[in-house]
């Protein structure tokens, strides 16, 4: 397979199995995937098929049993812990189903976290800008407990875009939200995605949501298949 300049994610012959007490559990054995810059991709599939696991492999959070993942042409597994962390901080962001905001920090402080990790000089101003962009200028100094679910997810989105990532992984970002709020969040996510030219990899159960993406992939019984309209 040739690798063009604009391939951001390239996975080859990915396999993952877990050693459990009941024996070894193979989730998938040969997954191949190429994602171009700026693309938006949805991964759908039944529960337990390994979507989250695949995501963590693609994001370099976990090592595959065999096979290779390259992000922006770099094989993360070749890097040291520190370099890999730095790469993640520079290029990758996540949005989770459960938001994962630290409860005792304000919205602003939560958004500042990834910037502080890279020791950004103007973390506070940057964070404020992003919170304004997601429409939370009134909520900067509120703690997560004082925010609604949708607002919390918007803080998480601000946090994920604050580092200007080239790759955004979202694992069921609307799973904890009602339909209406979920739609608003998705709207925001896609808008920012376009504006920032970020590559979006989205896990979802929602077929309509999957259709909004440029490509949709179905993970089932260990194989990843492209869904065509």
């Amino acid at each position, binding site marked *: 397979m040739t690798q063009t300049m604009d391939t951001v994610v390239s996975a080859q012959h990915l396999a993952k199995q877990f050693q459990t007490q009941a024996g070894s559990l193979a989730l998938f054995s040969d997954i191949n995937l190429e994602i171009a810059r700026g693309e938006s991709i949805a991964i759908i599939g039944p529960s337990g098929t390994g979507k*989250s696991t695949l995501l*963590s492999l693609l*994001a370099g*959070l*976990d*090592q595959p049993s065999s096979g290779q993942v390259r992000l922006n042409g770099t094989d993360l597994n070749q890097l040291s*812990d*520190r370099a*890999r*962390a*730095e790469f*993640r*901080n*520079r290029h*990758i962001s*996540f949005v*989770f*189903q*459960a938001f*994962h905001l*630290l*409860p*005792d*920090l304000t919205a602003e*402080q939560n958004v*500042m*976290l*990834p910037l*502080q*990790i*890279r*020791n950004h000089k103007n*973390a506070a101003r940057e964070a404020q800008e992003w919170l304004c962009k997601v429409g939370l200028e009134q909520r900067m100094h509120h703690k997560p407990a004082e925010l609604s679910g949708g607002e919390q997810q918007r803080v998480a989105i601000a*946090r994920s875009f604050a*580092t200007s990532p080239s790759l955004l992984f979202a*694992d069921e970002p609307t799973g*904890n939200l009602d339909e209406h709020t979920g739609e608003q969040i998705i709207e925001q996510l896609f808008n920012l995605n376009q504006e920032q030219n970020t590559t979006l990899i989205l896990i979802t159960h929602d077929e309509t949501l999957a259709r909004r993406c440029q490509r949709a992939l179905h993970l089932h019984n260990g194989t990843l298949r492209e869904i065509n309209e």
Partner: protein
Amino acid sequence: MINSVPFRLAVKQSVSCLKLSEWRALLFALMMAITISGLMAALGDRIERTLMRQGSALLGGDLLLSHTRPLEHRYLSTADKLGLRHTQVTQLATMANHAENFLLVTVRSLTAPYPSGQIELDSPSPSPLPSSGEAWAEIGVYERLGLQPGDQIQLGNHSFTLTRIIRSAPDRGRGFISFNPQLIIPEGALEGTGLLGPGARMQYRQLFAGSPDQIKVLATELQKTIPSGVQLTALKNDESQQNSALTKSSSYLRLSALFALLISAMTIFLSLRRFTQSQFKRAALLKSLGLSERQLLQLYISQLAIAWLICSLTGISLALVLERLGLFLLQGLLPQPIPDASWFVYATGAILGGAILLGMGIPALLVLQKSNTSQLLQSRAVRLSWRGRLPYVIALFTLIVCSALYLNNLTLTLSLIAILLIAGIVLGWLGAYIASRLTQRLAPYHRLGHLLNSRVIQQQRWYRVQIPVICLLFALLSTNLIALNDLLGRWQAQLPAETPNHFLINIQEWERAEVEQLLQQNGIVSTLWPIYRGRLTKVNGQPLADVLTPEQLDQPSLKRELNLTSATGIPEHNRLVAGRWQPQGGVSIEQKEAEELGLEIGDQISFDIAGREATAEISSIRTVRWDSFQPNFYFIFSPGVLENFTPSYMTSFHLTDNSADVSRQLISQFPTLTLIDVRQILSQLQQLLERLSLLSTLLMLLTSSAGLVLLYVTLTQELEQRRYENALLQTLGASQHQCRQLDQLEMGLIGGLSGLLAVVITELSLWSVHQQLLKLEPALHPYLWVSLPLIGCGLFIAVSQLSHRQQNLNHSYQTLINRI
């Protein structure tokens, strides 16, 4: 059968829970609480009983009269009429001598055996008291002078044959004089020794025993007739005993043990909270499997009961071992034999531990019982709600009740707990505040500075518990150690090299010239002070009772005979603050004494000296340096006033270590003199303090281990939270290394801060201890300012390293997606 189901489950659970750190911490803390309270109760009880000697057998009678002058015979006749048993004791602290070896001893002679209590000897004696020419002595006399039964011992002019070893005897006295080894000689033998001149340290006692009613009658009778100055001691209401130095130190030990107890209680509370949290799901599961709420409660109560039983057994055994160690440390300081403590005392630890467990545990169990099966169906991991105040209120109440029982003093307990609570809240708030301000300020100077600041903001609640606990623990430990050390060290440093270290008392008029000569020959510079023993009886011609307030009448200086002197020159360590020095017929009074008795220049004061009256006008007021180790006097008369009274003389001087020869010469030439070697007394006191400090170190070790467990528990309580935080940071792009560094920075900061705050508290409390209790010049302790923060830093980093091993990245994401 149904009943046994919860119990069997409980047995299984107690074992399987051992893999939970909170269960282990609970067991350990409970055991500590039981050990400490049991140990303190037993040790305290035995020490107090030894020291107080409240038993009539130890006192020698049910009622006793004591005085520094011979007591009148009519008291004995009164007792005879009432049909009471009695004896009369003459006692003297003096030098015993054998082959030029000298020893300060207490000598007693009795007119009859003690009315209650036995003199126990190594071998039976045909007569109840030593017969003529014989003396019985405690083992200390034999050991320190290298004697055997059958040897001779010299007291004053007289020599006695030692025939028996006294194993124990009643009427040993208390306080420091009771540390002197004791001798009993036959009735009247003391008179022959020539030791009884004016100025001798005599004690005359009459002891009575009989039925409580008889004693009551006698006591009321005596109270009416005894002159002031004669002390009446009834068996129960002996207040002076409560104030004895050792009783004080035993309550001091008790107090410091209280802190260990509180720490253990807190550990129990926190680990129970965590335990119920970890059991919440299991409880719901058991319920869904058909266990009733009642059975569930039974199950967990049984489990706590099993824990209590095991901890009681181990805790009491440990207490027994430590008690041995404690008594071993106090050996030789406490008059033997030490009475056994009753079994109940040992059980108090277990009872107290049980009470704490109940108070802390029941509210937790009630929450557990409320677990709901429907929670199993929800994917959300249910967090147990402890929002209600009830558990805290019950826990606090339990603590107060337990501490009050332990200290046997409600006001003390309440004020202590209030102080601790307030100090804890203030310290927690202050510590958390400083931590966040400090990290905010320093953030730009370290790569992780801003992250650290976020972390500190995130963890405020935890700091508010952690910082005060460790801070107070540190402060307590260091205050204790330093106060005792300072007492030992600085006291000695305070004495200039030439400070007199010998007192020579009981020098009679006819010996005076020769003693002076002998001292001069040996190059010893000293002044011989005439001593008259007298009691203040009148002010401006009126009896004291008419002119003084009840508080003033209560002054200790009015209750005993004072050493009075007369002099032409003002003693060098005295300073005149008012009046004129020694006009004809004048007397100079010490400033404090004048203030306390409300006496002023121009007042006429009269003394009763050996039954006769001497009157003088206060002509000057002086200050005195009491710690100068010179003879010091409240009253110094101008020479003419006491002309017609016979004094004895005393002096003090400094002897170097290799001038033991002088003391030998003195004693052999003047056998009736008493030479008091201050060094001996100081070293005895020092020994006592050293042993006490060892004992308190033992307690401090227990306290620190309780504190370490608490630290461990609170750190692991936060473990989940920290795991989660680190996982999140890692997905946000922090490396494992950075997370570890962040943890260490945070722990170091909090540990160091706790240490620093502890230093402040330590210095503050040492300041007041030094001023109020030790009467030492307060000073800062620079090494503390370095060592405590460092120790805090190291300790926190070490314990956090122990309690949470770093997780790797693979698990981070898992942690995040599994935590919903």
